[in-house]
């Protein structure tokens, strides 16, 4: 019974959906306020979702029928599964085990691949352009993102999020060493979430909606929801890796979780308000010329420090 509660209600599906819709509204509101706009109302994401779900189901004749159906669901399922392995209000996640960090990283990569598949198999020119862009972009941001998230784990000498938390709770000051990695994670995870400046796969200005051109109604609703959930999973993961400090009381822990994730969300908002959409070449140059060397230096420094303290 407790397992089912964990899976479906808290911290599983239901809580994730509610929180991700709230975060979507907050993020849109923040963006709008930074652009001198009023922004949508707080329930707008919910209204959008309901409207989309209620719409007619349409699959283009030339598209791959099965994949068109499945890909949005797989994207949503992958992020929801990843959420179960991220610790929220105590060092233990819903299903902790040794190596859960790797599993989470693997699962949060899936939505980007789903975007590619969606674009490619919808057999539309705009869709395939968007899909190819999503895949190309993945080759750019994925490496620095993984390196930046693995750097603190290397220092802690543990592949589990619980182990990382334990290590840094004993030596909190060492977390300051990971600040560059934190910065890299903030920047490159925008690529994962396809937010500005890495939003060329879904850039409306030149190619309809890119990979999602042919998706409408509930298929798009699923993608939209997957994207919102992906945001929450990503900010939770960054919080769990870079700010792994938990108070003893679960209630306080939960409040601290909200505080941490919202802080990261505000950083996200600031970053993509201040940035210009990059095209593929520039994405590569940013990631491989600046982010990867920086992440490498971070890893080398972490290894050296580990040698000194152990």
């Amino acid at each position, binding site marked *: 019974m407790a397992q089912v509660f964990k899976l479906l209600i808290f911290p599983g599906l239901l809580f994730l959906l509610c929180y991700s819709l709230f975060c979507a509204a907050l993020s849109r509101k923040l*963006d709008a306020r*930074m*652009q*001198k*706009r*009023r922004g*949508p*109302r*707080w*329930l*707008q994401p*919910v*209204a959008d979702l*309901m*409207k989309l779900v*209620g719409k007619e189901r349409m699959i283009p004749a030339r598209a791959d029928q099965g994949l068109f159906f499945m890909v949005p669901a797989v994207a949503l399922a992958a992020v929801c599964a990843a959420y179960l392995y991220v610790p929220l209000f105590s060092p233990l996640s819903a299903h902790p085990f040794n190596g859960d960090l790797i599993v989470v990283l693997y699962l949060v990569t899936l939505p980007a691949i789903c975007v590619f598949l969606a674009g490619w198999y919808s057999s539309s*020119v*705009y869709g395939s*352009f968007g899909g190819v862009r999503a895949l190309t972009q993945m080759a750019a941001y994925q490496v620095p993102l993984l390196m930046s998230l693995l750097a603190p784990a290397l220092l802690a000498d543990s592949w589990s999020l619980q182990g990382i938390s334990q290590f840094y709770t004993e030596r909190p000051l060492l977390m300051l060493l990971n600040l560059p990695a934190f910065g890299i994670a903030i920047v490159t995870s925008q690529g994962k979430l396809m937010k*500005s*400046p890495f*939003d*060329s796969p879904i*850039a409306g*200005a*030149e*190619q*309809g909606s890119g990979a999602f051109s042919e998706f409408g109604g509930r298929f798009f609703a699923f993608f939209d929801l997957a994207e919102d959930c992906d945001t929450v999973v990503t900010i939770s993961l960054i919080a769990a890796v870079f700010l792994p400090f938990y108070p003893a009381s679960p209630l306080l822990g939960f409040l601290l979780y909200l505080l941490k994730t919202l802080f990261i969300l505000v950083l996200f908002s600031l970053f993509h*308000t*201040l*940035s*210009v*959409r*990059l*095209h*593929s070449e*520039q994405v590569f140059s940013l990631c491989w010329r600046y982010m990867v060397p920086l992440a490498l230096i971070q890893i080398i420094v972490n290894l050296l420090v580990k040698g000194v303290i152990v």
Partner: protein
Amino acid sequence: MTQRQLSLKPSAPDGENKNCLWVTMASDRVAEVHLPAGGSHQGVEKSCEIHSYMQDLLILERYGGLGPQAHAMAFCQAMEELAGIVVPQRAEYIRLIVSELERLQCHLLWLAGTAREVGYDALNMYLMNDRELVLDCLAEIGGNRVKYSVNLPGGVRRDLDEHIRTRISEMLDEVGRRIKKRGSLFRKELMLVNRLRGAGVLSRDDAAAYGAVGPLARGSGLSRDVRADEPYGAYRRMEVAPVCDDHGDAYGRTVVHIGEMEASAALIRRALAELPEGELRAEVPERLPKGEALVRVEAPRGELVYYLRSDGGASPERLRVFTPREANLYTLQKIISGNYLANIPLLMTDYDFCFGAASRAVVIKGGEEQRTVGWEQLRDFSRDYYLRHEAGAGRAGAEKEE
């Protein structure tokens, strides 16, 4: 990768553009551009031939979305040339002031479009906000935010009194300050500059060969500006130095637009200081004498040419309007080919913009009763509406969906 054809129709890339554009992509670059012109033929010239001169003035003010002053002024100048009338100096100065205000608002919109197309939404919103100040000023002069028709054959129909003159100079102070800020952002912000550099390169020779006009030509270092080359109206008493840039890409054009806005502000200030006293309008006969006239003015987007032929009747025998948009059509084709797909929307904004008009008063009819709601009230109403419905309407919307 095989070649693929993409249609960038009005619905797909940029809703405001009325031209349909077909591009063939080879890998990530544009190999070939096909631009069938005349996507929205309005028959303006023909309809001008069957209406009277005064009616034509109204039609021509609605030629494009954005340049009512340039069109109306060119048409009035053509009529004045035919009738052999000397326009009062005060009227010429007022025309200059309104033209430059129009340039200011058009360029702000252009910059906002550029910011939007490179994905910098925050800057886009800020620039649109700045443009509002100019539009408010124009509304106070002409009575409308977008169709501020101040021209009449032989002069102008609105005077600039002391109050409006102070309003304009206050607005110029504020907008000038903001342009300075935004300008340094466009010139120095690294991400923005990197994105604009090298997008849609047009060399000086190509610009000359394709007959580019306006900021598009000046961004390639080609000094073409009717205000300087062949001054008309009050420009004869001012020296206008064309703002040029040698980059020849989107960045160069951006720099030109910013420089021109600063120059426009200076021109308006000088015209306000020198504004002579006198009549606003000279009489123009209803029927123009037989003859023909060719007039060139510098519209915000470039050289605008009007050819008018009269056979002595109540309406023109022939009217030909050559807009800067028409002149730059082939240049657009040139600058798009060889570019990334991602740059196309940016280059389309380089080329043109279109927007609908904004209405100013609404007549509410309910049975016998009829009342007119003024503009001030409408603005206040819309502000109050959003403040009042901030919380409540969202809930109502969500319930309705259920």
